[in-house]
């Protein structure tokens, strides 16, 4: 860790494999695709989750209304949180298939260009 370049085992011109990946189009696309899913999903689940304590806390009358036989709105809204969370989780797993493809492609390109992945894992730890 003495110099900045010492952690990657670069081939020509001292360029590390990290630099090489950073300049790949696929890597930029991967980061972008992740952002496109993770940011809206996080914003949505945080708002949806906090709507529950806010509504239950400040509008208990509305939330106590029975909507399905003896079951009230408050319980249904709480129950819906579980299914929304599961839904987001499964949607993420679906979206992540694309991320994995980008990742595999990047690693393949690196291998073809002769960057070695064997000596890693101990860096900076």
């Amino acid at each position: 860790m003495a110099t900045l370049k010492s952690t990657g085992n670069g081939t020509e011109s001292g360029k590390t494999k990290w630099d090489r990946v950073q300049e790949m189009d696929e890597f930029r696309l991967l980061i972008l695709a992740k952002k496109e899913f993770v940011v809206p999903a996080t914003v949505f689940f945080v708002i949806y989750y906090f709507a529950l304590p806010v509504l239950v806390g400040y509008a208990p009358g509305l939330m106590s209304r029975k909507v399905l036989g003896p079951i009230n709105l408050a319980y249904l809204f709480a129950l819906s949180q579980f299914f929304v969370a599961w839904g987001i989780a499964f949607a993420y797993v679906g979206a992540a298939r694309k991320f994995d493809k980008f990742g595999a492609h990047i690693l393949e390109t690196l291998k073809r260009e002769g960057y070695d992945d064997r000596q890693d894992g101990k860096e900076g730890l």
Partner: protein
Amino acid sequence: MTIGKMERKVSKLMHLDMTLVLFLVFIAITLGITAWASRRSGSSASFFAANRSITAWQNGVAVAGDYMSAASFLGIAGLIAFFGYDGFLYSVGWLVAYLTVLLIVAEPLRNAGKYTMADVLAYRMNPRPVRAMASLSTLVVSTFYMIAQMIGAGSLVALLLKGSGVSFTVAVTCVGILMIIYVVFGGMLATTWVQIIKAVLLIAGTILLSVLVVAHFHFSITEFFQAVGNVTYHTPDGKTVVKDFMTPGLRFKLPYGPLELISLGVALIFGTAGLPHILVRFYTVPDAKTARHSVVWAMMIIGSFYIMTTFLGFGAATIVGRDFIAKNGGTNMSAPLLAKAIAGDVFFAFICAIAFATILAVVAGLTISASTSFAHDFWTNVIHNGVERKQGEERMVARIAAFVVGLIAISIAIILGPTANVAFLVALAFAVAASANLPVIVFSIYWKKFNTAGAVCGLLFGLVGSVALILIGPSIMGVDPPTVVGAARHAIQHAPIFPLENPGILSVPIGFAGALLGTFLGKKDPRAIQRFEELEVRANTGLGSEKATAH
């Protein structure tokens, strides 16, 4: 002695024996696993990370087993039994919190780290100060959480085995010794399997109990919820009350109730992804994809369990009743008493044994994360500058640390005693995890300009902020009438300065503010920026991540 009395006595002894036998069976099986695992713990990767060979479903079940504590099983069932709907709100937060783990933390952590949470924080930064702070916050979170679990365990086991001569002290000591044995001899592999067995038992018991509750209402959900709408109990002054237990607000009343709920939500949603004992579980799987799938497995199991707390809690409220539970051990006994009421002594013994297994698995997970952090972060990286001087030294230090942490937790739990108010210890653990750990984890992975000063300040502000707000909050401060004595008395007899028991709503912004402040006031850190590019590649592609080892 009348015949009726004798019958009761005999039945009491029978369920005691049954409970004890089931406890011993569980202990025997888990010790067998520990012996098996100890023969496989020959390297650091196997001791700290189970050779990174745990599969997605196994890790998912183990995460569930690590997470669903006695607080969820007995605590939430009790809260719902006593306060109805408001108790169920806890259940929701404990599941939704896993979205933060899934979307933001699990995969980058697996790709960029090795054994501990601090691996990711120290990756770009000057490792010594960052690791020292991260290790401190890990130890605070884990030991406080552990002490809460141990006190819960002690009073629970003493209560379950009442009449058998097992006291609080004996129970705490036994739980402590078992958890030390699992971790010291079996490492992460044994801990993982203890957690898996516990989770399977807990889910099986909960499903069985839920089905029996619905059967009690002739398999009619309508009839069940109608009963929940008319729960009768008596107030301490003898008045009869009929309440709709579906109504929100029976526990969290204005003016501070809703804020308390929101603050608790903040701590849960952002704290779970900063709990060291949950995070280390993602190092036990071979790659980020498996880590991702294991979170989804965990969410399925944890979510199903928390939905079923509806039947456990409302079932106890309607079938057993608040009056009876209050006279027979209090809120925490709601689920076991429900089991007894609908299926008799054998099932009661079974549920009690599950509660015991639940506590053991959680404390084992806490012990291993605390001792790993001490050995890997503090001993090897802070004191010895990242060099393991002798082969296996880190493992040896971790074993000693597990032993010491265990002894400290046993001693503090015994000193505080069974009547201590421990709820604030759990609140503290989650608040520190959310306020100190999470902001720094998120900035390390996603913010290029983040630097060493920012990481240290974020950890420090979050840690000190949460502890301070709890110290000046209603858990510690309050004015009691002179009739309240002993451990139940507030430590500081003064009106609380901060009105909420859960500091998350204020302490999480304090943690983020500390991280921002440190980053802007601290020195520019070109190395941290350069290494960010490396971390970004690693975290997102898995390039150079720790591989599974053959076993």
